[in-house]
């Protein structure tokens, strides 16, 4: 139901959003590798942050996986100040999802975005229960040490086919959507 063009476009939009929003400094290295299996199968106790973009034709779930380790804490705590780390991560995920939403808008007129929510990684195997038409995970490494991952899950109610224009200049600053 989701054409290969649309899958490639969604992947491109997600990776572009991840590269532009997840690194805290513009010159931080960000390596993204597709995963064959779910990222958190070996980390059942981890938590993930989940967001949804809804349209008339589909719903797209974005899942961000953050390791609760020293390098992650150190990297993302630099700018938190008095804000708890989890709130900071929620805000980053919200920005990332907002960037995806923004890049989908030229192709889908009516879109809405949810607020983020924290779930146990044990919930993720049940994404299959939503009968997704497209499910893909990516391992993301920032500066060679901060390891995280993103999963995209698209459930379509009608055939989806579009080719995203990925030649547009990336914006370095995003609008903060309050939640």
């Amino acid at each position, binding site marked *: 139901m989701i054409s290969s063009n649309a899958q490639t476009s969604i992947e491109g939009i997600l990776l572009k959003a991840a590269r532009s929003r997840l690194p805290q400094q513009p010159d931080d290295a960000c390596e993204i590798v597709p995963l064959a299996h779910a990222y958190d199968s070996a980390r059942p106790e981890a938590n993930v942050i*989940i967001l949804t973009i809804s349209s008339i034709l589909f719903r797209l779930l974005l899942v961000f996986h953050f390791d609760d380790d020293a390098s992650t804490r150190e990297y993302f705590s630099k700018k938190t100040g008095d804000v708890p780390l989890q709130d900071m991560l929620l805000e980053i995920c919200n920005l990332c999802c907002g960037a995806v939403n923004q890049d989908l808008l030229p192709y889908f007129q009516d879109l*809405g975005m949810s607020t983020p929510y924290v779930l146990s990684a044990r919930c*993720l195997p049940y994404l299959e229960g939503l009968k997704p038409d497209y499910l893909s995970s990516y391992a993301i490494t920032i500066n060679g040490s901060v390891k995280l991952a993103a999963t995209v899950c698209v459930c379509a109610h009608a055939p989806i086919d579009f080719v995203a224009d990925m030649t547009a200049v990336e914006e370095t600053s995003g609008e903060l959507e309050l939640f």
Partner: protein
Amino acid sequence: MIEQYLLAALAGVVATAILALLLHKLHGARTLARLQSEMNDRIKTLMETNAQQSGLIDQGEQKIQQLESSIAQLDDDLARQLKIAGEDRAALAAAVEDKENLLDQARRIAGEASRLKSLAATFERWHEQMISLMTQNQDMHAKNHELSSIVKHVVIVSLNASIEAARAGNAGRGFAVVAGEVRALAARSEELSRSYRDSLHRNDLTTTATFQDIQAGGKMITASLGSVEVLADQFQVRLH
């Protein structure tokens, strides 16, 4: 002699008188002829003038006829224009009425769109209920975790009971059977707890995905209604 002179003088006077009379008559005839000639000239001039005047009168009459014809045509044109103006006035009145109706409809659409935007509050209420449901799920997770701890403890206790029963020898044989049953029940409870935990996680994901879809769908509808409202407002402005 004198008589002769007198006769001669008289004859001279008579001849002079006759000559004078002749001259007078000749002069009178000439004057009359001149006057007649002048009169004829004047008559001729007057006749020519009269002919010219008659020509002018004819031309004037022709012009009057043309003007009367033009006036009649203009009257027709005016009547026709008045009829068209009347029709245009009626059409204008109908168009004004249509415009008022459209304006009223645009106003109502904008009003409805504005009113329906308050649906966002409903979607947010549903989202709050998701938070409430998820809190309950968390509570069930905690209780299931506690149950799992108890079951693990029961397994240990049943193992200890089995060991103690073995130590008691024949006297403890019955107790060993009970301890085995307890361990089997604990194992089933443990499996049930694990299954329950998995169900809760499935429930967490389904609930979150559903309510996020509702929340995002609500925002999508609110944004669309905002666009409808803007379009209706723009339409209203154009109609004004």
